[in-house]
């Protein structure tokens, strides 16, 4: 089986996405082995300390928004955050970012859709969830359904549009300047890959959090 077969079988974004997931899994397994051997009384240093701060931050964030349900959401948010951080800034390594493919971003938005709707169904119960769609008035039902469907699509298209426009503009600058491109392109990479990429990570996670905590049953909050 040759390499072209894989290149045509996977669409372009999926290749780099799978590469990124394998690398992140490898990194996390390594970190797990390292952390397991530490004793709780030691002072943590280096990468372990950075990871502790990150996990602490995400836990606090999830507690703020989800109350008693935070233990289910914190790992999902951290996973999304790690994946998106590295996926959006992949242009720095000369690889086309996986999130500049609409397949990857709409895949992420399917995940967000099931997270948001699953939250509503589990916390309100099936009957309460369906009753919620008919509020405030029964004839609003189609509008509510469209509203629920539009949320994940807008999440996916927002991420795709931002990263893809960054890729196009960076490519245009490279093509226009030719051999002199390295004078200007560091600035372009800093703006489109690092700045806008990281902002989109924050926005994606914040919106997923807000929409799923909105669909929590109100008496549980």
């Amino acid at each position, binding site marked *: 089986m040759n390499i072209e077969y894989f290149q045509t079988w996977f669409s372009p974004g999926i290749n780099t996405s799978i590469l990124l997931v394998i690398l992140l899994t490898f990194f996390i397994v390594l970190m797990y082995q390292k952390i397991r051997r530490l004793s709780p009384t030691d002072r943590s240093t280096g990468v372990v300390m950075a990871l502790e701060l990150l996990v602490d931050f995400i836990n606090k964030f999830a507690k703020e928004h989800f109350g008693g349900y935070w233990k289910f959401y914190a790992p999902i948010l951290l996973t999304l955050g790690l994946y998106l951080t590295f996926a959006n800034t992949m242009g720095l390594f000369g690889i086309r970012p996986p999130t500049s493919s609409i397949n990857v971003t709409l895949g992420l938005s399917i995940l967000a859709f099931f997270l948001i709707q699953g939250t509503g169904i589990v916390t309100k119960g099936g009957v309460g969830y369906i009753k919620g769609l008919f509020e405030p008035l029964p004839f609003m039902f189609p509008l509510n359904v469209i509203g629920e469907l539009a949320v994940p699509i*807008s999440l996916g*298209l*927002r991420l*795709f*549009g*931002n990263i*893809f*426009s960054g890729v196009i503009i960076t490519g245009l600058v490279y093509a226009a300047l030719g051999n002199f491109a390295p004078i200007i392109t560091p600035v372009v990479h800093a703006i489109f890959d690092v700045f806008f990429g990281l*902002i*989109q990570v*924050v*926005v994606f996670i*914040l*919106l997923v959090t807000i929409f799923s905590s909105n669909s929590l049953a109100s008496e549980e909050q």
Partner: protein
Amino acid sequence: MEYNEFFVQGMAALGAGIAMIAGIGAGIGQGMAAGRAAEAVGRQPEAQGKILTTMIVGQAVAETTGLYALVIAFILIGNLG
């Protein structure tokens, strides 16, 4: 007038250009958010960090309509071949 493939391609390119007029709205919205954020920092300089975060998230959401236009423009340009 002849309705051949070149006519379709020209109209697709024109449509992509017209779709990007939506960028005006996103630009005005982001500018207003930045202006209000500057006013807020002037009133409460100690809250600068929170104001900056809120402004950037709000701007990123306001940008979405412009990005929809961009996606439509890309779809239209994809027809040019």
